[in-house]
């Protein structure tokens, strides 16, 4: 029965998306155009330059395209579904999360799991097409592919908790759109979505090493393209695991604190 409830909660967002063909078409068009533009930009930039920042043209293009595809993992139009924590806090409906037989933290995790699996299907489909079309290079070896898959999984674990912290922030601040935007910006910049971190100055790379964001995307993609050799990968996987555990414990603590702040109908 618990599995059935979990399945029902996890499939809410994917079902919502599957019942909105125009939105899926929009996602497809956006993904195709974005991949073409990003690949074209990096090919164009490399047309007069050789290897730079330790990245050859194929590596840079693969990284950039994979970053676009990975962005699909957690970029559903949740706002349209009216089920973001921010909206629930704004309209006072967050209290219903605490009235169900399913604990809010589990509901949140199941919804996110469904979203990430649905997004993964998009990313995987896009990856296979890009691989067949020669837009991205294949991984260097089966071992690289395996370590990349493990690192990607750990990265998604860290990413979920980073995004969860943003949601949990809503319990403490009445209006926090700006804080959310700033943290989402930090996540994109410091995880290498805008550009591979290898292109940034050394002080920037050192700074990002102390933060969890690079563990979400930069590490798995760097392993995939071979910028992080397999000999160094285990250390990076350990860092990812550390952030996963640390953030899990921290967000669990925040869930307990958040529950005390929920009020119903003003009192």
């Amino acid at each position, binding site marked *: 029965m618990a599995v059935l409830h979990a399945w029902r909660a996890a499939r809410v967002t994917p079902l919502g998306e599957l019942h909105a063909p125009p939105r899926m078409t929009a996602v497809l068009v956006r993904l195709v155009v974005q991949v073409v533009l990003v690949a074209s930009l990096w090919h164009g930039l490399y047309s007069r330059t050789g290897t730079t920042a330790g990245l050859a043209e194929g590596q840079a293009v693969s990284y950039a395209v994979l970053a676009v595809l990975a962005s699909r993992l957690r970029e559903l139009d949740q706002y349209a579904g009216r089920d973001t924590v921010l909206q629930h806090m704004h309209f006072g409906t967050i209290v219903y999360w605490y009235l169900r037989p399913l604990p809010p933290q589990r509901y949140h995790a199941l919804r996110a799991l469904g979203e990430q699996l649905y997004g993964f299907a998009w990313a995987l489909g896009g990856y296979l097409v890009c691989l067949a079309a020669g837009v991205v290079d294949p991984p260097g070896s089966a071992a690289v592919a395996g370590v990349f898959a493990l690192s990607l999984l750990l990265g998604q674990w860290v990413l979920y908790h980073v995004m969860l912290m943003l949601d949990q922030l809503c319990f403490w601040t*009445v209006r926090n759109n700006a804080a959310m935007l700033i943290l989402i910006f930090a996540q994109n910049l410091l995880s290498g979505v805008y550009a591979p971190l290898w292109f940034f100055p050394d002080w920037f790379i050192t700074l990002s090493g102390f933060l969890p964001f690079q563990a979400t995307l930069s590490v798995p993609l760097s392993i995939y393209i071979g910028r992080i050799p397999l000999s160094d990968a285990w250390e990076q996987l350990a860092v990812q695991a550390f952030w996963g555990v640390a953030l899990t414990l921290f967000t669990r603590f925040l869930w307990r604190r958040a529950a005390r702040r929920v009020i119903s109908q003003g009192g």
Partner: protein
Amino acid sequence: MNGMRIAWRVTRLNFRAQLEYRTEFLLMIAIGAIWQVSVIVFATVLLTRFTGMGGWDSSEVLLIPATRMLAHGLFVLLLGRVHGAGRQIQEGRIDIYLTRPMPVHRQLQLAFFPTNAIGDLTVAVGLMVGALSRSRLDWTPGRISYLIAAVIGGMLLEAALFTAITCAALRFPAADYWSRWLEELLGTFGSYPLNVLPKAVGGLLTYGLPLAFVAYFPAAVLTGHGHDTGAPYWLAALSPLLGVAAYLGSRVLWRWSLRHYAGVNG
């Protein structure tokens, strides 16, 4: 005149309303600045790693993001509420606007004060000062006038694009999805010489989505690269006017769309 006075009073009240939450107010200014800094960071990284982008030197390239960001900052301040207006449409606020004795478009623009525009404009002005100080061009009155016209034209062109999406959102509220993508495209690809891209892709960003006219073409004309853009020189030079024409066209489209607006529930 009376309408202007009301608009000014509403804006002042909106500004005071934003001040009610001081931390949020300051963070909104910060977010405007941070988003713009991200463009500068990315542009700086690319200029450092890839010298001679598209045959432009770095001081010339800087003029593109400076023009775009200044145009964008003004757009956010003056006309930016059309961006993300889909939420107001989904919440049925347009229906309320229709019952009031003020044009719906003006009510939409007066819905709230865009605090983030303060941060946007601060960084944009800083970047423009930096770009002009590094520029080796002779800044004659003609060039300065053209640059000012380009910034205004860029603002109007951006406003036209977002207004068109809002028109679609009046009919299909989910169309608001495209506005976030458009903002992302303008931020990412509106800040570099588009001749680094293949011709077909550059053509798409010129004739499909007129992103090149916001800052790339005006900067190309100012820096003497106007003949290397792949588009006719006269067309590139007319970019500021295109912005005006596009905005007027979008307002006509807005009026037509509003006449056919049937409410969020049909």
